[in-house]
């Protein structure tokens, strides 16, 4: 009789994957949050375009705990449609950052969007796992999201998105990609939110008072 060993194997495995992301992707997470923060402080926008199972729902604009740093895909699509209708105008995506996420990097719909938005001057970040093309065709020949985006954060998804092997089962089972993509989305949100929060403090009245005090102390010493 099972006492929960398979569940424990999954729990151990997903904890390990989250730990790998935290340690091995830390530089990428910092670089991405810095790029997003810099875009926002100079008046540009950040968009979130996510596929896969839970991310589009769990990472939605307006979900409790989502600080609204990333705009949803709809205003981006609206803008792309508008631009298409008025081809030849200067890009309105210059300086904006777009976060793309999918289970694996061969993602035909997102590849096309990533290509277009990058052509229009946006910086692009991919959250997911690099993959070969296998049975999925690509909209942009020879390029996957991993290659099309300026920065890539690996979600460490196992082959076929199955964490566990079972004797007697032909395929790996129990996915990780939805869980890790949501975790990475909110980790990025928190990193950007923290940078915003620190910037408030540095530019706010408390910081200005401290600077004034330091200047006056220096003047007194000299």
């Amino acid at each position: 009789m099972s006492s929960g060993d398979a569940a424990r194997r999954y729990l151990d495995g997903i904890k390990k994957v989250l730990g790998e992301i935290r340690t091995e992707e830390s530089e990428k997470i910092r670089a991405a949050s810095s790029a997003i923060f810099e875009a926002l402080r100079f008046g540009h926008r950040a968009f979130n375009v996510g596929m896969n199972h839970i991310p589009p729902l769990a990472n939605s604009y307006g979900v409790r705990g989502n600080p609204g740093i990333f705009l949803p895909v709809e205003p981006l699509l609206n803008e792309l449609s508008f631009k298409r209708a008025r081809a030849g105008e200067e890009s309105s995506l210059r300086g904006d950052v777009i976060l793309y996420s999918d289970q694996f990097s061969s993602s035909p719909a997102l590849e096309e969007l990533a290509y277009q938005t990058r052509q229009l001057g946006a910086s692009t970040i991919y959250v997911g796992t690099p993959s070969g093309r296998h049975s999925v065709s690509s909209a942009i020949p020879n390029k996957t999201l991993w290659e099309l985006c300026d920065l890539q954060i690996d979600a460490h998804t196992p082959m076929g998105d199955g964490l566990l092997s079972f004797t007697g089962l032909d395929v790996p089972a129990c996915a990780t990609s939805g869980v890790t993509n949501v975790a990475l989305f909110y980790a990025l949100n928190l990193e950007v939110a923290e940078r915003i929060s620190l910037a408030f403090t540095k530019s706010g009245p408390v910081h200005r008072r401290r600077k004034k005090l330091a200047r006056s102390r220096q003047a007194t010493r000299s």
Partner: protein
Amino acid sequence: MLGFEYLRSLESSVERLQAQAPQMADAARLIVDCAVRGGRFYVHDTENIVSNEVAGRAGGLIMLRELRPWNIIDLKGSENDVVAIFMNGTDPRGERTLIDEVRKRRMKVVGVFPTSSKDHPLHSSEVVIDNGLVEEGGLMDVPGFKEKVGPVDAVLNSVIALSICAEVIDEFLRRGLKPSVYMSLRREGSIEYNKKMLAQYERQGY
């Protein structure tokens, strides 16, 4: 820094879920007992986040179905059907209606909810799993932001649902039965494999 604290906190929460593994095994036994008698396995959560994560996906059980409130209107249901109901917070609100409808149909319930919530209607479930999600919304205070940032409910409930699925697969195999599981569409030969699995599912019911 806060992003990394958030990830660390998720790791700790996943670690704490290890204590619920025996209950996950109980849930799997119930689901498999019912499935071999011709029953179905449903997942329900208000936001359709957990059910969307586990139904119709790579490495997932073909037998698993989403149960949205409107699906139950014409659902006959039976004592061989099992619904895993995921809830957060201490107030079940409109969920009482769905739980009542499920009970009227004599369906079995795996209740995943914060068990510290005393009068919760899911306490009467055949199997109870504590997700510890008493508070809803974000996990971390960030000065300058009105609400706490970084929810954990979607991640933890999905992890519980996937752990139950792991136990269900294990339980079938332990009984010498082969459950039908989807292969990722991103792998070579997946279309043919999944067709074969769907036919197997139609034959077996799991």
